[in-house]
């Protein structure tokens, strides 16, 4: 009887582990962002894969990618990238708010909708991060690099989208 009880307890944990996949995937892609993924000389415009991943899960499963998870991702990104603590958190909260409350429609989304939502998310992230970092540090920033970082992120985003569609399919089964 006891072993059955434990079995059901562990099976509950294991069956719920899949709901951590969006968080873990986004954190993994956030780490990949600071890895040597770009050719030498082009590092400052590396794609923001963590943001793309987070926006993807907010679009498809906002119930799993909760406010709490979004805060964790923003917080971890701030620490990894060495930016002002809170700027990433605010950016990710605004992204979730905009996607779920403003942009979301109940019609099925296709690849164009996905790219539009992603572009908006990347724009929000870069705008908020750069604004907060430049206001607090009172420095002029290189906006060309920021613009191209956003652009490269959009171009690379299909790789993240398709790899995560596989995970989404696994979760949805």
């Amino acid at each position, binding site marked *: 009887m006891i072993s059955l009880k434990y079995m059901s307890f562990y099976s509950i944990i294991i069956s719920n582990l899949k709901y951590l996949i969006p968080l873990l995937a986004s954190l993994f892609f956030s*780490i*990949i*962002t*600071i*890895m*040597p*993924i*770009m*050719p*030498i*000389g082009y*590092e*400052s415009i*590396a794609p923001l894969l963590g943001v793309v991943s987070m926006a993807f899960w907010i679009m*498809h*499963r906002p119930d799993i990618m909760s*406010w709490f998870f*979004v*805060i964790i991702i*923003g*917080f*971890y990104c*701030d*620490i*990894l*990238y*060495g*930016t002002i*603590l*809170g*700027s990433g*958190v*605010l950016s990710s*909260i605004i992204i979730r*708010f905009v996607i*779920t*409350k403003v942009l979301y429609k*109940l019609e*099925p989304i*296709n*690849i164009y909708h*996905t790219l539009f939502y992603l572009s908006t998310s990347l724009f929000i992230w*870069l705008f908020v991060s*750069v604004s*907060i*970092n*430049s206001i*607090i540090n009172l*420095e*002029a*920033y*290189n906006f060309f*690099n*920021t613009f191209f*970082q956003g652009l490269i992120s959009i171009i690379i985003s299909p790789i993240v989208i398709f790899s995560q*569609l596989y995970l*989404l*399919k696994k*979760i*949805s089964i």
Partner: protein
Amino acid sequence: MTRISNFKRVQSIIRERTSNNKLLTILSFVFAFILILSTIVFPNINYTIKAKVVDYSSGIINSLYSPINTINRSATNLYNIINVHNLNKKLRLENQKYELLNNELIILRNKNKKYKELLNISKDIEYKFVTAKIISKSNLAYTKSVILMSGKNDNIKNRSPVIYDNSLIGYINDVGNTSSRLISITDALVKIPAIIVDKNLKIIVSGNNNKYLEILNINDLTLIKEGDKVFTSGDGNKFPENLFVGTIRIKKNGDFIIEPSFDLNSLNYVKILDWSLKNRGIDIKTDPIFYD
């Protein structure tokens, strides 16, 4: 794509919309603002949190960094192999120039040694250092920093200068037990008191989150020429003197910029100098405002 998750997606949207989470939304925003404000008011607490979290994740970051870096390096090496003939030609010409310069250097070094002996000048300080491995890249447009695999356990202290081959690379900003963060000289936060030795011209060099550095507070532009070498002046006790910063270049619009001696992203290891008062040769009571 539409077929895969449409049902679940619609379900989750309905769940999201029907759940009354206005309070959560407000709380999330309030939390973010408090976090930003706390960064301004209590920067030390934030540094501690950052250092701790980086410490815990440094193992994962390092294990991912090594294989990805190997792949990246292989691609760069392949490019170099293809261009080996042209590179060899270019390097031979440069080598001839350096051979001539080396002869002059030997004579100058000898003269300098004799002058020092005659004047009875005290010996230069030789700074102790720790070699640290870089485990991340500076990949963002709005900040320039990397994570190092050395921390308090290796006697690394905050604000220590970081060098590579006698060239200034940056300084330490956050220190954990096993990891630390290196802020590059190209970051917009960094200001370096510098000197153009040939002209005895003191300048302030500033990063701007770009590949090149900017010159601040310059009055007489006519003195500076392309190719001039910029070194640290040692003013302000932030960096040691005579570290190479970069070479003066002219932009298309005529503005002067400085090309850093090394690109941080091309390095795998750096040297962290021991910047304690004792190691700097200061053993008297000092005002911490000026020396720490």
